[in-house]
């Protein structure tokens, strides 16, 4: 990929409308709206889950019923009616395929529209795909290559059947059922998601990648991802999302748990491009996600996210630095335009000695949007010599948007070293005119300035993803200056 230049990229970027706004008509198997114990049992039954899993879900449901939606985030929206949502939807074509020929052609057409046809993906050495359309995995590739290394990469439903001991041991250990309202809801009704286990000492030879789509009208998506990197192993995991354009709000409450055992490293990258609603603020996805990783001794977890979509984002990929010398990183670009609202950031919880965390957050607000960074750096009394560096930069476009920073620091150990830097800047008319004078039109000038602003984070993404991320930045901000 060394021949790649930013201009190669820009050549591709001609799209004006929300590119992935289409709806695929695949026959689906959908539950009636509403949530109660019977629905939870039915989901579990549908998926032929073992008893312990059903019980685990029911426990979560009991807790959820007693909980209320959090209101501390800097976002305003009409709360979803949780009884008006259908909690299960699966494409009818249930069986797994050995080859693409067997896959529903309409589904393949969907992939093509997304530019991620499995055909191409198969050829693209180094990327294994576990595709989630609606709630059930329908295709998995590169499984064999991974199997040779003993790497398990499959849907969480399959993992519950095939590797119950691993799932049972780790699920809920980083994000417990009762962690928060949305995590509890997810624990009760999660439909599917991905599971990944890297055995001791194995470096995963390829980027593992999952594309999520929300598809069925009015279906909430409750993905559950569990990644376990055993001692001394390494994995880079990519998660990218697109969704059909749709007029009603769609709820998405995912849970991602990462476990990095001693000396292991997990790199988790996300490009999120869900439907943000139209220019008047109508529609769009509600994205309420709980992502957290646990680091044992000398382990490292790195979150990189590019968030351009969703009407409402509530998301704090976090690290619990339990082991000594463990490292947590958070690199984030959050773009909001029109009426989007994002409250996003991270928590770095330092429990072990000599733990280190880095937070680089870049917020870009345009239109009438509101973009908040919320971060917590917590140093426990036992965490000797903990270090944190945080940098939060905001870029504003126009006069009607808002950028907010809510950094929280709790240090209970005197040896802690904590640095926090924050800047706010505005794309100036002078910058635009300067670019114009050099023959660069305003739209392109903004893309250039925004990409420059985001560079530190874009550089952390794997190359294929960096390309897509830059595209998304440009598409998201098109028409935002006038």
């Amino acid at each position, binding site marked *: 990929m060394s021949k790649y*230049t*930013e*201009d190669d990229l*820009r*050549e591709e970027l001609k799209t004006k409308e929300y590119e992935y706004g289409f709806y695929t008509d695949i026959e689906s198997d959908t539950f009636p709206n509403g949530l109660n114990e019977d629905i939870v049992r039915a989901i579990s039954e549908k998926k032929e889950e073992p008893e312990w899993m059903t019980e685990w879900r029911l426990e979560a449901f009991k807790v959820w019923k007693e909980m209320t939606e959090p209101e501390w985030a800097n976002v305003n929206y009409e709360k979803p009616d949780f009884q008006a949502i259908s909690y299960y939807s699966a494409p009818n074509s249930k069986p797994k395929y050995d080859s693409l020929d067997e896959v529903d052609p309409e589904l393949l057409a969907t992939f093509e529209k997304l530019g991620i046809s499995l055909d191409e993906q198969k050829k693209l050495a180094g990327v294994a795909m576990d595709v989630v359309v609606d709630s059930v995995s329908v295709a998995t590739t590169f499984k064999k290559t991974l199997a040779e290394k003993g790497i398990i990469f499959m849907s969480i439903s399959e993992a519950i059947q095939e590797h119950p001991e691993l799932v049972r041991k780790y699920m809920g250990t980083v994000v417990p059922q009762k962690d928060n309202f949305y995590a509890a809801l997810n624990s009760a009704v999660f439909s599917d998601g991905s599971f990944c286990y890297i055995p001791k000492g194995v470096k995963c030879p390829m980027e593992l990648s999952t594309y999520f789509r929300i598809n069925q009208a009015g279906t909430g998506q409750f993905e559950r991802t569990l990644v376990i990197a055993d001692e001394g192993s390494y994995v880079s995991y990519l998660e990218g999302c697109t969704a059909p354009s749709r007029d009603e709000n769609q709820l998405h409450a995912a849970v991602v748990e990462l476990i990095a055992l001693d000396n292991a490293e997990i790199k988790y990258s996300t490009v999120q491009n869900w439907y943000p609603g139209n220019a008047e603020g109508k529609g769009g996805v509600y994205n309420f996600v709980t992502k957290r990783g646990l680091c044992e001794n000398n382990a490292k977890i790195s979150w990189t996210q590019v968030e351009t979509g969703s009407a409402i984002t509530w998301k704090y990929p976090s690290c619990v630095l339990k082991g000594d010398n463990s490292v947590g990183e958070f690199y984030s670009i959050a773009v909001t335009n029109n009426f989007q609202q994002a409250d996003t950031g991270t928590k770095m919880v330092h429990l072990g000695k000599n733990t280190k965390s880095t937070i680089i957050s870049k917020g870009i607000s345009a239109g009438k949007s509101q973009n908040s960074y919320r971060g917590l750096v917590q140093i426990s009394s036992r965490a000797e010599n903990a270090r944190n560096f945080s940098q939060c930069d905001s870029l504003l476009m126009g006069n009607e948007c808002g950028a907010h920073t809510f950094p929280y620091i709790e240090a209970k150990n005197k040896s802690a070293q904590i640095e926090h830097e924050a800047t706010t800047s505005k794309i*100036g*008319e*002078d*910058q635009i*005119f*300067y*670019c*114009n*004078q*050099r*023959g*660069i*039109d*305003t739209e*392109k000038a903004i893309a*250039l*300035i925004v*990409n*420059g*602003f*985001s*560079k*530190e984070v874009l550089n952390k993404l794997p190359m294929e993803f960096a390309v897509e991320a830059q595209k998304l930045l440009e598409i998201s901000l098109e028409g935002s200056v006038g």
Partner: protein
Amino acid sequence: MLKIKNLHASVDDKAILKGIDLHVKPGEVHAIMGPNGSGKSTLAAVVAGKEEYEVEEGEILLDGENIDELGPEERAHKGVFMSFQYPVEIPGVSVTNFMKTSINETRKAKGLEDMPANEMLKMIREKSEMLEIDRKFLSRSLNEGFSGGEKKRNEIFQMAMLEPKLAILDETDSGLDIDALRIVANGVNKLKSKDNAVIIITHYQRLLDYIVPDYVHVLMDGKIVKSGDKQLAHKLEAKGYDWIKEEVGV
């Protein structure tokens, strides 16, 4: 090449240019001098197409075509280049990347393909050597943390890369030490040809020792009050502007 006729322009309803006539032919170098606030930089900005300036009257013709209605990028595509008095910073965007975007956007406007990477590289090498620019400098973020002299040299480097038809140098000499001034002036002289033209806006005749103008114009209170050759610049340097004020009764 450039014909400005009875140009009146204002910003925020304040009249700044009050009837400018200027005719620049290919191969010529014109210097525009004048005291602070006389409208020199405004003239440059209006020709370049800065939007906050309102053209109230008159017209600007480039090769016979009225460019009043064209946006600044379209004028740039037609070969108008302005070296900024205060070049802006764009963090995270390298000089090279900026130049690449600039050149390819201009080519695109002309219906040309992107410049091949090896050709671009060769050009960057040549032009940076000409202006004695360290290659490391080209990977730095545009103008971020540049000294005054580096910023100006970078402006002329961009001019060299873009090879404009009409270059307007707005106080390019300010903030330059004598060595940098010599390098910048040499660069401009090498870029000069019978097909292009340069307008130099300056307070001092210092730069004009290096880039010899064919015409010198004095701008006062939004009008060109006196034109002459290089001798006029020397006279201004020696005697200031007061004598002109008296002579023309401003």
